[in-house]
């Protein structure tokens, strides 16, 4: 690898916006056949760097080299023509068109009089699909494919040119574990064909599984490149945030109180069946399982968004029936939902109004909303949760992911719930804020809240939970205490390998 020409080299890239130096002399070298991770917290400059590389932004200083030839990227199409291809986190496919049409969108092969050469289109597409080893054909409608297969179409799109470098931006965000395996095979295949791969992700396990080198950005500056084989998560994290992240097993314990929530034999359609568990005050119960195991659906049922088909819910020993979120809120159940921007926040609304939304009807002076009471609540939880915002008037959409999540958490804490359910508490949040939120969850338990944490990240579940409920395909497979759980037994349980429920 050492004596090869780099597939792609960025040299001293500077990009300034008025008042901000978003990129401050960043250099990056990607060798052919290398998977190169690009890491950094939100706002570190990864996206800006990629926009420069993709021809969306022009750099103020610096130079891009492709195979050591200096080059200027004038537009995304131009970048693609030069062999630099992006696989975006958010898919940009036309659902109603076929796989082939999507792959060659904008460059369909033509016959005379501008007619589309369908035969050639399908032949060329099938040839590309064959190299990707996928189970669908050129004529399939994209809307009928799974998310993972749609991502394959995105990748296939990249292969219509002879790519020199392919950039994957958080490609696994919406993939199941099985689908990830396929994606990693494709990346390995690109690698073996001598393509340089840039892989952007927050997920350490993946980074350590598939990358050769890791480059880290912080505050728009290049912080260094590590050989993946010679480093570890701690070192990378330290480089990213300038300090270490504690992801050890949860060891703190505190007095557990009464049983706050008990669920007996709860079922909902085909989503989950015969689920029983309880949560005590001061306890964090983690729900771990694969996507589709029914965890989120349980939370939604407890929160009154779904009607259970069987089973009972008891709060502080009393059986309750919950038919709407308003019911749930009244009974002291709060849900920090999985999709922060879609379900948790109104991005065009300011911080304060978002935070007080569930109780706005109660914060009144006469018939009017009491400004003072609202600001008081906002101030209290801004301080308590250390929310960094210029003021309550700031639109939530302008905050970072971590601060947005704290607004949602603050919104529910200010309701003084009996039971707090947190679904995927740190999805899409940078590493620094992640550990803050983990600490916050532990603290809440210490203050006597009964907390349910649903997560797809094993380190997270292990780190915050007192007990872990492992789910597989809508059923509770096993319950572990923090002392007895091991990664292996947990993986077995969520894969449906443990046979009997606890």
């Amino acid at each position, binding site marked *: 690898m050492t004596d090869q020409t780099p597939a792609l080299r960025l040299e001293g890239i500077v990009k300034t*916006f008025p008042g*901000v130096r978003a990129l401050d002399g960043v250099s990056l070298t990607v060798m052919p056949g290398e998977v190169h991770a690009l890491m950094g917290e939100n706002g570190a400059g990864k996206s800006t760097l990629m926009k420069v590389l993709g021809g969306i932004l022009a750099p103020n200083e610096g130079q891009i080299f492709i195979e050591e030839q200096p080059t200027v990227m004038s537009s995304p199409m131009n970048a693609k023509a030069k062999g630099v291809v992006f696989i975006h986190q958010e898919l940009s496919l036309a659902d109603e068109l076929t796989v082939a049409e999507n792959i060659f969108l904008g460059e369909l092969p033509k016959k005379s009089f501008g007619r589309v050469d369908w035969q050639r289109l399908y032949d060329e597409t099938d040839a590309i699909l064959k190299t990707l080893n996928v189970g669908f054909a050129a004529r399939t409608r994209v809307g009928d494919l799974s998310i993972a297969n749609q991502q394959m179409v995105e990748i296939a799109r990249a292969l219509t040119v002879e790519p020199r470098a392919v950039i994957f931006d958080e490609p696994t965000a919406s993939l199941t574990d099985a689908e990830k395996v396929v994606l990693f095979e494709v990346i390995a295949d690109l690698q073996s064909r001598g393509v340089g791969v840039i892989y952007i992700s927050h997920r350490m396990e993946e980074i350590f599984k598939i990358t050769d080198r890791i480059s880290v950005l912080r505050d728009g500056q290049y912080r260094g490149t590590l050989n993946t084989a010679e480093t570890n998560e701690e070192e990378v994290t330290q480089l990213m945030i300038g300090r270490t992240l504690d992801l050890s097993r949860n060891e703190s314990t505190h007095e557990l109180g009464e049983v706050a929530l008990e669920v007996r034999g709860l079922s909902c359609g085909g989503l989950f069946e015969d689920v029983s568990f309880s949560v005590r005050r001061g306890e964090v119960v983690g729900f771990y399982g694969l996507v589709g195991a029914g965890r989120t659906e349980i939370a939604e049922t407890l929160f009154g968004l779904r009607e259970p088909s069987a089973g009972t819910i008891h709060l502080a020993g009393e059986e309750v029936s919950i038919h709407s979120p308003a019911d*749930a809120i009244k009974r002291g159940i709060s*849900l920090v939902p999985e999709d922060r921007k879609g*379900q*948790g926040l*109104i991005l065009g*609304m300011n911080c304060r109004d978002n935070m007080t*939304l569930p109780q706005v009807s109660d914060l009144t002076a006469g018939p*009017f909303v009491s400004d003072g009471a609202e600001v008081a609540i906002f101030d209290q939880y801004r301080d308590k949760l250390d929310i960094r915002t210029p003021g309550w008037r700031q639109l939530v959409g302008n905050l970072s992911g971590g601060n947005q999540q704290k607004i949602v958490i603050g919104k529910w804490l200010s309701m003084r719930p009996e039971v707090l359910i947190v679904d995927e508490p740190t999805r899409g949040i940078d590493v620094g804020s992640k550990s803050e939120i983990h600490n916050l969850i532990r603290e809440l338990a210490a203050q006597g809240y009964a907390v349910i944490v649903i997560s797809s990240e094993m380190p997270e579940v292990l780190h915050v939970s007192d007990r872990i409920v492992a789910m597989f395909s809508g059923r509770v497979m096993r319950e572990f205490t923090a002392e007895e759980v091991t990664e292996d037994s947990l993986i077995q349980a969520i894969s449906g390998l443990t046979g009997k429920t606890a």
Partner: protein
Amino acid sequence: MAELTRKGLQGFLARQGILVAFAVFMIAFAVANPRFIDIDNVFGVIRSSAILGVMALGVTFVVIGGNLDLSVGSMMSFSTIVVLDLHDKIGPTLAIPSMFAMTLALGAFIGILVGYLKLNSLIVTLGMLSAIHGLTLTYSGGKNMDIADKSGTWFSVFGQGSVAGLPMPILIFAGLAIVLSIILSRTPFGRKVYAVGGNGVAATFSGIPRARVVFMTYLMSSFCVATAGLIQASRSLGSQNTVGQGMELEVLAAVILGGASLLGGSGTIFKTVIGVLILGFIQNGLLLLGLAFYAQYIVTWIIIILAVWLDIAAKRGGLWSRIA
């Protein structure tokens, strides 16, 4: 932060462009024809905008709640015809509340379809535009409706009366604007309208009864339409079946012009009032410049397009964008 300042001027133009354009218009008109800023003309414009304005106040709630209401024009015709007909049959004292009840029933019906059944508001209210027109014609038998004794009824007070020199339509418009502005900006209900329009799913996840809030916005819209119908009927004391025809687009233009987003979640009553006045003054100005009345239909469309463009431009922070 960088993104905000980078396109500073362009962003400012995108956000405040409509006010800038309005100022330019006003100055140009005033120079071209000094009568334009004559106090009588100014009052005249406000008074003739009042009916449209009252309807726009209600539609503001609907639009902020994330929906459209294209039925207000034909609903206003309905209210006008009904109240004129009942005036002679049961007297004004009973006719007015009866008309309000019937109009509110129409609003409630739309509210059920859009709020509780979650049907697309564009389709529902476009259909209702036509259905209510049919209802009005069925009710009136297609004939114009006139009050028999036009000089002997106190009913004319809403359209023709005045208090301390201020015409009643302006007072009703102003009073309603103040009350609705307070409801929208200061009450929990108002906050919920913004929440539902801003992100309906997140509102639901916060325990807000989305269907009921949407239902209420249509009820408020129909209340405003009934008020507008009352002013219209009282002013002319006789009416055709098509008196409100086409007003739905002007109302929408005024609301969007004021800066409420068609996507929901933003806008204020104050801005809508500004939008109504801008529309009124521009139409008046063009008349004074000698443009044919019919040209207003074209101008209104141009204004809508301009306003929608600026709305989108404000969202993406520039007038042009390569993507979306």
